């Protein structure tokens, strides 16, 4: 399989260099893979996810997407919109928008027509069993339902890469299992690459590769079978 994301000797510093989140990290993510990023708090998992998602620029090193350095990808907002889907721990749905609108908000600026986007979002809600909840506000949905809406939002623009930051962290075990089933299913059916940050070993076990970070670097023997 070809490399989708490649981090080469990436460093990330905060607070004028007093805090070092990533310390010369190198990592290769293959296309179509399901990678779990694990490690203790403060090891740099979320920073790495932010950098891969082009939400932050690394302090040093280089990051490439399909061999193209991030600096040459053009407008990063457009890159995120067309290539990446984000799933957050706290769902981060817009409280004033309905479930359907929360999905459609991602399509602003996309090439798809409003009609096509609406059709697609409605279809997604149907597939996720949320058709009856489409006009409900986030506050009227359960945690599991909110995360399913967030997953639909991440998928609406047909991304190549899903970045999930503790997607089950705010859910009960039943909802967490459902969400992980959903992510696995989507990844298998659509061939989307998934990078998931998790503290939960059961969630990490769903991935086909586990990358363990410590002190801003990848620990050796990151493959699942080596855990």
């Amino acid at each position: 399989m070809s490399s989708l994301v490649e981090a080469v000797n990436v460093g990330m510093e905060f607070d004028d260099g007093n805090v070092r989140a990533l310390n010369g990290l190198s990592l290769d993510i293959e296309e179509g893979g399901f990678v779990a990023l694990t490690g203790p708090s403060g090891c740099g998992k979320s920073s790495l996810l932010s950098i891969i998602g082009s939400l932050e620029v690394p302090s040093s090193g280089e990051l490439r997407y399909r061999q193209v350095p991030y600096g040459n990808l053009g407008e990063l907002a457009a890159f995120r919109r067309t290539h990446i889907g984000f799933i957050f721990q706290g769902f981060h749905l817009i409280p004033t928008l309905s479930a359907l609108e929360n999905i459609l908000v991602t399509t602003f600026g996309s090439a798809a027509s409003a009609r096509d986007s609406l059709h697609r979002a409605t279809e997604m809600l149907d597939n996720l069993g949320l058709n009856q909840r489409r006009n409900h506000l986030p506050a009227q949905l359960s945690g599991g339902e909110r995360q399913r809406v967030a997953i639909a939002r991440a998928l609406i623009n047909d991304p190549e890469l899903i970045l999930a930051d503790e997607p089950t962290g705010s859910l009960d075990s039943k909802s967490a299992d459902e969400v992980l089933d959903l992510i696995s299913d989507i990844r298998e059916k659509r061939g989307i690459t998934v990078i998931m940050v998790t503290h939960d070993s059961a969630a990490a076990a769903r991935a086909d590769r586990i990358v363990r970070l410590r002190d801003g670097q990848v620990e050796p023997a990151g493959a699942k079978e080596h855990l």
Partner: protein
Amino acid sequence: MNLGSFIYGNLLRRPARTLLTISAISLGIAAVVSLTSISWGFEQSWQKANDARGTDLIVTRMASENTLPSTFPAEEPRRLLLTLPHVREVVGLFSTLLSVSDTAPPVFVFGWEFHSYLWDHLKLAEGRWPERDNEPVAMIGSTASAVLGKKVGDEVSIEGHRIRVIGIFESSAMVENGALLLTLTQAQAATEKSGKVSVLNIKLDAGATEADSVSLRNAVREKLPGFSAITSGELVRSNAIVALSKAMSGATTLIAGLVSALIVFNTMLMSISERTKEIGVLMALGWNRQAILKLVCAESALLAGAGGIVGILLGTGMARFISRMDLVRGKIEPIISLPFLVLVLVFSTVLGVLGGVYPARKAANLSPAQALRQE
């Protein structure tokens, strides 16, 4: 779903703040609309009154910039004016503002030369016209009749002189409808200003050109030191009260504009501060700087636009209410023109956008990762 419904939802999310912001902006806009329409109405009421009389030029004292020109002896200037080329008629006019009853507000009292062209545009609604110059009677405008509660046969008191009302007239000029009208001789006698007038109205002959009018004005300046011959428009524009009301309206517009922009600025800054994480989410989802700028500026514009609409309705109502107050009724009719209201709406919306520019830039310059970390 479109950007509009998203913006609408954001504003409805904090109804109290949205309502307070709209209310504050609308009060400023209402002040602008009411004051400006009254100021224009004041100017146009006098312009209409002068125009309705068919006067070509008005001779007045050069320093007469009060609401009503100060009086001067008419005889000498009149004699001299009649010797100038193209002058067909010179008619004296006396005007003052007086209380004519104990309970009613002051009204304009005009004295016009008997049988002069000044009377030609009036229509008799009831009663009769004066029959001779020295007949001690008064005509009353239809609005003044309603405001003062005086009808034909009633008496009015002018400077202690009791004068009987013999007719009610109607004019195309509101100022005249709200006035009492006497012959010039009677008005001078009642106010003890015998032989004096406020202005002299000149009617030129039919063959007079614009150049003749200019020559005449120069001749008046040369041969009647201290006097000037001006058009009715110039007379109104030089009026101190008109100038003051326009200046006040301009100052109110400036202050209301600044306050409105600051209100929008404050509201949007608070809103951005509270929604930092949400903006981070939008950026993570692929919204670029321009989209965030557009979102915040459009919210600001919508707030200010709504404030503008409410302010226009409020201001129009205030202007109409003021014009119906007894003190003002029959003297000023506010001018509320559609182009002006559209301009006010555009003005308030533009101010809203300006007030939203800094908060919008602040939001658009947020780092998505930092915004997402915000609690």
